[in-house]
């Protein structure tokens, strides 16, 4: 009983979000006929699989006390390089690892720059965001690369268990990330990077290696998201992934991860992504103008952080 109570209090953000989610689903089911259909649920999952990947990576980044504004740019540049490689005749089996490696390298550049210059991650990744986006524009000259081979498209968005394969990939990443983040050294050190990097360093842990590894993971996940987006649209373009880092940051914070790092909340992040997807889907179904979507997202984010802050203060006093 006590254990249950403690579990509930630790998972309170996730539970609260879940309640909001359920309330919204009930509301939408009553209001519209098309919401509560299997098709629509699949729609929501498919439309949010790549957002989920980005948010999971961003959760690790933020819990390590950093931020990554270059996510959307990494997504676009790695997608463009893949598309160019595919167009150049490289096989699908080689192009996809190439894309992931490229994402990892761009992430590593972020991590190394932050570690060695000791300049704030915000500034460094703001700069590399422009840098990588610039590379995308230079590479494509603004012209989307389209008509990609069928093999690539079936990898990125082909049918798997009746859903686009992106959904399966997102699930796989969650399943792998959960033990890595909660039950292995990596997660412990990554959150300590946000909690007290000096303490970690003084414990003899090579912090640079962990700092870089989080950014590499983010880069790889961005590239994976890029593959899914490109395969769905059958087109790689320089402005793909624009502002996606902001959606990811929003979901992470709404999901109960503090912006200053030190702790991460993976289930909360997953539910928050789903909730934001639900809002988008609900507004479309209710035929509400997209103007309201940003307003509602902003209001929810504000509520989430205010609730989290007050609970934090209360527990510190208590």
């Amino acid at each position, binding site marked *: 009983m006590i254990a249950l109570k403690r579990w509930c209090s630790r998972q309170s953000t996730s539970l609260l979000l879940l309640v909001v989610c359920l309330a919204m689903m009930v509301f939408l089911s009553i209001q519209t006929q098309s919401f509560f*259909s299997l098709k629509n649920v699949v729609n929501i999952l498919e439309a949010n699989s790549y957002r989920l990947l980005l948010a999971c990576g961003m959760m690790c980044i933020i819990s390590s006390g950093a931020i990554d504004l270059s996510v959307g740019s990494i997504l676009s540049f790695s997608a463009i390089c893949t598309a160019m490689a595919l167009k150049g005749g490289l096989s699908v089996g080689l192009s996809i690892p190439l894309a992931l490696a490229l994402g990892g390298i761009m992430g590593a550049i972020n991590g190394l720059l932050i570690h060695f210059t000791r300049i704030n991650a915000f500034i460094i990744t703001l700069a590399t965001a422009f840098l990588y986006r610039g590379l995308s524009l230079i590479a494509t000259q*603004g012209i989307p690369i389209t008509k990609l081979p069928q093999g690539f498209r079936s990898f990125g*968005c082909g049918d798997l268990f009746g859903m686009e394969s992106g959904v399966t990939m997102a699930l796989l990443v969650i399943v792998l990330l959960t033990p890595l983040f909660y039950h292995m050294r990596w997660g412990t050190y990554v959150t300590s990077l946000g909690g007290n990097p000096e303490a970690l360093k003084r414990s003899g842990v090579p912090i640079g290696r962990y700092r870089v590894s989080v950014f590499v993971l983010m880069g790889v996940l961005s590239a994976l998201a890029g593959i899914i987006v490109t395969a769905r649209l059958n087109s790689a373009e320089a402005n793909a992934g624009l502002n996606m880092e902001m959606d990811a940051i929003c979901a992470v914070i709404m999901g109960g991860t503090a912006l200053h790092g030190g702790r991460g909340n993976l289930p909360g992040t997953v539910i928050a992504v789903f909730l934001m997807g639900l809002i988008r889907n609900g507004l479309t179904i209710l035929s509400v103008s997209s103007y309201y979507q940003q307003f509602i997202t902003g209001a929810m984010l504000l509520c989430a952080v205010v609730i989290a802050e007050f609970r934090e203060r209360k527990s510190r006093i208590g």
Partner: protein
Amino acid sequence: MMKKWYSLLLAAAMLFSLAACGSSANVEGTPAPQESTPVVSATPAPEGEGADSGLSPTVQQLYQEFDAAMEAQIGTMPEQFGDIKVGAVVISLTNPFWVNMKNYYEAAGEEMGIDIDVQTGTTEGDTASQLDVLMTMADMDYDVIIVSPIDGTNLIPGIVKCNENGVKVINLGPGVDVDALEEAGGHLDATITVAFTEQGETVANDMISRLPDGGQVAILAGLAGAGQSEGRTSGAKSVFEATDNIDLVAVQNCDWDATLAYDATKALITEYPDLKGIFCCNDTMALAAVEALTAEGKEGVLVYGVDFTDDARAAISAGTMTGSMSYSSERYTKAALQMAVMLNEGETFENNIYLPLTLVTVDNVNDLEGWK
């Protein structure tokens, strides 16, 4: 409030054009279907009819010719039709052109008694979220969805889904890449668009007619790879190159951007002091070019744009700009809705429908009060 006003105006315009349509058919006979898309000449109309409609005779005539041309392509609107629910996916609701289109869609829907929802992605250029919207709409109870994609391929999975669910799809404006769509196993039920090459050709021809002695001309294009920009540029280019005494000295991409167009114009005029005319692929760039010419103290250079925005209208009235390509957005949405109804009633459209275009110039701009 705004909406009410629009619909009132629309109703008046509609009544008038219907009446006018009938009479013109009697006098001139039904226009024969044309191979190429009709260009409506914007010569002042004879005075007399409809003085109290608030529209100038020129506009009334334009509407008449427009409707006639559309009828030739689409056919007549059925008198009675079954219940229909139409969805429209537009490019953005933060760009004035598309905001206007949304308003015209809704006004036309109200007037024709059609249920219409206009939706869009979160931000302009967000190809993925525009697709998400269409994917969701495909599973709803729409009979017809009118799509205006951000680029040639981003909506393809959504269109395929509509095909599978038996929802009819009309492509309005920026074109879907038909080959890629076919490859993905989908099809469009109808297409209504503007012939971009023709916009370029019309401007180029008008410019040449104003330059009897020929001379140097230049083109400021939009974003490289954007269909509108490529079409307008190639149209104008082919006409210029086919004319002996015209020398096309530069084609420069300015990405629809005013600042880039301003700087490009300054550079052009320095390099080619005898430049006689500039065709800009939209009005934003054309107005910037006018600014640059004024700043350089250069007079008499012909500047043309596309879109006929309010600012362009003012500049043409003031004589600083020579002309701008225009078409009626109001009629555009109305025609699309009519096509939606006809598709729903079982009709098919084999060919692409092209919107009649109008070139507004210093000669006719003052006759175009009320044109939209």
